[in-house]
């Protein structure tokens, strides 16, 4: 799409959408939101860039191979963190602290898990879109 207005608007809007998505992910454990919702919002910004600037530009940000690697690494990290909270008792490892209302850096593993889910969902939704859009 070669529309100057569209391109300029997307240039301004896409970072804002991404910032909002990051906010939703980071505040997921103390307010409505979370990794899934924030991830889809960030993926929406990537899809918007894919539509306006074309496949080549969007691929330079996030292509299929890179997304697959991101998903695998995030899933492994997620599994390791969950394994700590499931099996930590058997090795007398310390418990993760419970959260304080309103405090972002509380609640133990929930924040890192939300961030990992955000990465996974962003990559997955974007891959789904780019699979269906063959220009």
């Amino acid at each position, binding site marked *: 799409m070669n529309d100057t207005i569209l391109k300029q608007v997307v240039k301004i809007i896409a970072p804002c959408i991404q910032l909002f998505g990051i906010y939703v992910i980071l505040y997921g454990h*103390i*307010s*409505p939101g979370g990794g*899934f919702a924030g991830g889809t919002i960030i993926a929406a910004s990537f899809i918007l860039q894919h539509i306006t600037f074309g496949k080549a530009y969007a691929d330079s940000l996030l292509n299929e191979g890179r997304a697959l690697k991101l998903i695998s690494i995030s899933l492994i990290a997620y599994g390791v963190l969950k394994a700590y909270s499931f099996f930590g008792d058997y090795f007398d490892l310390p418990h993760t602290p419970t959260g304080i*209302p309103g405090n972002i850096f509380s609640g133990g593993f929930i924040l890192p898990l939300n961030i990992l889910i955000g990465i996974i969902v962003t990559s997955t939704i974007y891959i789904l879109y780019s*699979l269906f859009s063959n220009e």
Partner: protein
Amino acid sequence: MTLLNNYYESASIILFGIGLATLMLNRNLIKKIIGMNIMDTSIFLFLVAKGYITGRKAPIITTGFEGIDAYVNPIPSALILTGIVVAVSVTAFLLALTVKIYEAYGTVDLEIILNLKGDAYADNNKLPLG
């Protein structure tokens, strides 16, 4: 408690019927996928209606815990979130298969595709897709 008092539940069962009928009876694959989504959404409506208690608010603590009677049941919402993720992945998989079906057969009408004979094992050694 009549049907009209429980109008959320009644509506969700009607929607479930619509979705199931579309999924089973419609020949068009895309419409089948839409039917599947209607069916899943109706179940989410049913669950969320069951989880809501009039006069209470969402179980998100911002200003301090207000006692167990101040919040609605959060478990149905968690179930629905999981259900939505499952529905999204099934929808994506079905859409991908629909694209492949269209590339291979040139139609998304399942009736026509299932009635095709002869191609079953004849060209089994060719890769029709790129």
